[in-house]
């Protein structure tokens, strides 16, 4: 078994032997439900789709993804197991990938468990299930991007609280980057090209297209690139910390 797989399995198991996994899953599902039915006008819209459900996901992830990612490296640094892990014959990339994949699969599981909402919408009407699948994929990709940010920032500190706050702040910045209010703020101060660049960094902008069912390669590329870049930054930080 490759080190990536071994580490991924260990991490996944560690979620489920502690109450972390169950607490997280319950809160995720309850919040997803509340946001969809109350804040998202699921019924009153009278349209058989899951758009109100997906639109809330960035805000859901803003709180819950940092809670998953904060422990990835901070906990190892705190308990001293980082030394054990880094003296095993694995590269930092393999370790990072194993941990990231475990967390990403876990969030994927949480997403899958929202299936009753999909059943509901199919019972109530006849939605375009292709769009819904695209929405799920997009949501999972976005969760991956948030997770990669969290995994990277978790390497900076041995305090999980600090890791949580840093991640939440960066994520909220990336969500808001594309909002008109934010762009207006920059409009006067920055050249137009830079403002456009900021707008393109926005998670929301790329996610909204996918949530509407448009699987544009550029949006997928954006999320994949975000994941790779933040994981690479995390590996770099781990390596820098070795030479301290």
């Amino acid at each position, binding site marked *: 078994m490759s080190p990536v797989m071994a580490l991924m399995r260990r991490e996944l198991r560690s979620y489920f032997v502690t109450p972390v996994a169950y607490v997280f899953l319950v809160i995720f599902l309850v919040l997803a439900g509340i946001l969809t039915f109350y804040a998202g006008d699921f019924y009153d819209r009278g349209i058989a789709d899951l758009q109100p459900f997906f639109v809330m996901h960035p805000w859901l992830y803003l709180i819950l993804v940092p809670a998953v990612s904060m422990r990835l490296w901070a906990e190892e640094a705190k308990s001293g197991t980082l030394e054990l892990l880094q003296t095993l*014959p694995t590269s930092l990339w393999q370790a990072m990938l194993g941990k990231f994949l475990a967390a990403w699969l876990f969030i994927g599981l949480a997403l899958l468990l929202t299936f009753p909402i999909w059943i509901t919408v199919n019972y109530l009407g006849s939605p375009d299930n292709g769009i819904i699948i695209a929405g799920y994929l997009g949501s999972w990709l976005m969760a991956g991007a948030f997770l990669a940010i969290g995994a990277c920032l978790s390497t900076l500190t041995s305090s999980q609280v600090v890791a949580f706050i840093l991640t939440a702040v960066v994520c909220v910045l990336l969500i808001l980057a594309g909002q008109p209010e934010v762009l207006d703020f920059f409009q006067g101060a920055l050249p137009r090209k830079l403002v456009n660049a900021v707008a393109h960094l926005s998670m929301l902008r790329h996610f909204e297209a996918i949530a509407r069912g448009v699987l544009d390669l550029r949006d997928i590329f954006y999320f994949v690139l975000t994941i790779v870049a933040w994981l690479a930054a995390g590996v770099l930080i781990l390596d820098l910390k070795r030479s301290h």
Partner: protein
Amino acid sequence: MIETDKLTKRYGHLTAVDALSIYAEPGQVLGLLGPNGAGKTTAMRMIAGFQAPTAGTARVCGYDVRKEPLKAKRALGYLPEGAPSYGEMTVREFLVFIMRMRGLRSDVGRRRFDEVVGRLELEGALNVSIETLSKGLRRRVGLAQAIVHDPPVLMLDEPTDGLDPNQKHTVRQLIDAMARERTILISTHLLEEVHALCNRVVIIAGGRLRADATPAELEERSRYHGAVSFSAPGSGISQEMLGRLPQVAGIEVDPLDGRVTVFPKPGERILEPVESLLRQQGLEVSEIQLERGRLDEVFRQITLGSETEAHP
């Protein structure tokens, strides 16, 4: 084999390890000795690949830890300071995880698992989560993790720290049994351990190499080496006579228990002359001993002397 070549670690202005060059070959148990903060753990962390050297390098089985870190790590079994492990895992899960991370094939793995569990007497704890184990058991789990892949080189950072005398004995026996065809580097600040385990000793202080010798050679540096000590109530008269012996350099009496220590002149052997003199005087000697030398005294002499040298 383990080799360090001018291994150096600096944190800003502080030099934790300063151009340290040591060498250990198969069959050797090399003891890394030094006061707290001497740089033992930092040196080991660099050899294990957890920290990168500022300058110099280390080699494990010939693999440079900077150029071929994965090969070096594969050849090495390492017990970090404090024996960290994942508390929520059971002992079985933890060892299986380590074997998978090390890429052990499952048939080899099963055999090694049974062997290691037997050797460290972990059978009863296999399905217990590590965080509920006693300190001694946790240390044994850490050792099991370090030897599970049967490494040619073993590096143990304070392997008996926090163990009771019986557990210490078990761990020392284990290290002794493994020493024959392996290279073993252990760090310790227990001098008794040096006698019990090591066939060579490296003393560092302030990050620098201060001594590299066998335990016997170190003992010879002690002023107690070759001295004769005895307890004899009412030996006051004979002290003067002893002092007149041509081989004797000096005499000290312990103010607490009245034990007399007679120091020889360099190169002289004084056990027999002292004994015969005492016999002539008709003194009742309850016990007489030829001193090998005191490691603690040599240790102090080497490490304290160097400190004043390092920070004038």
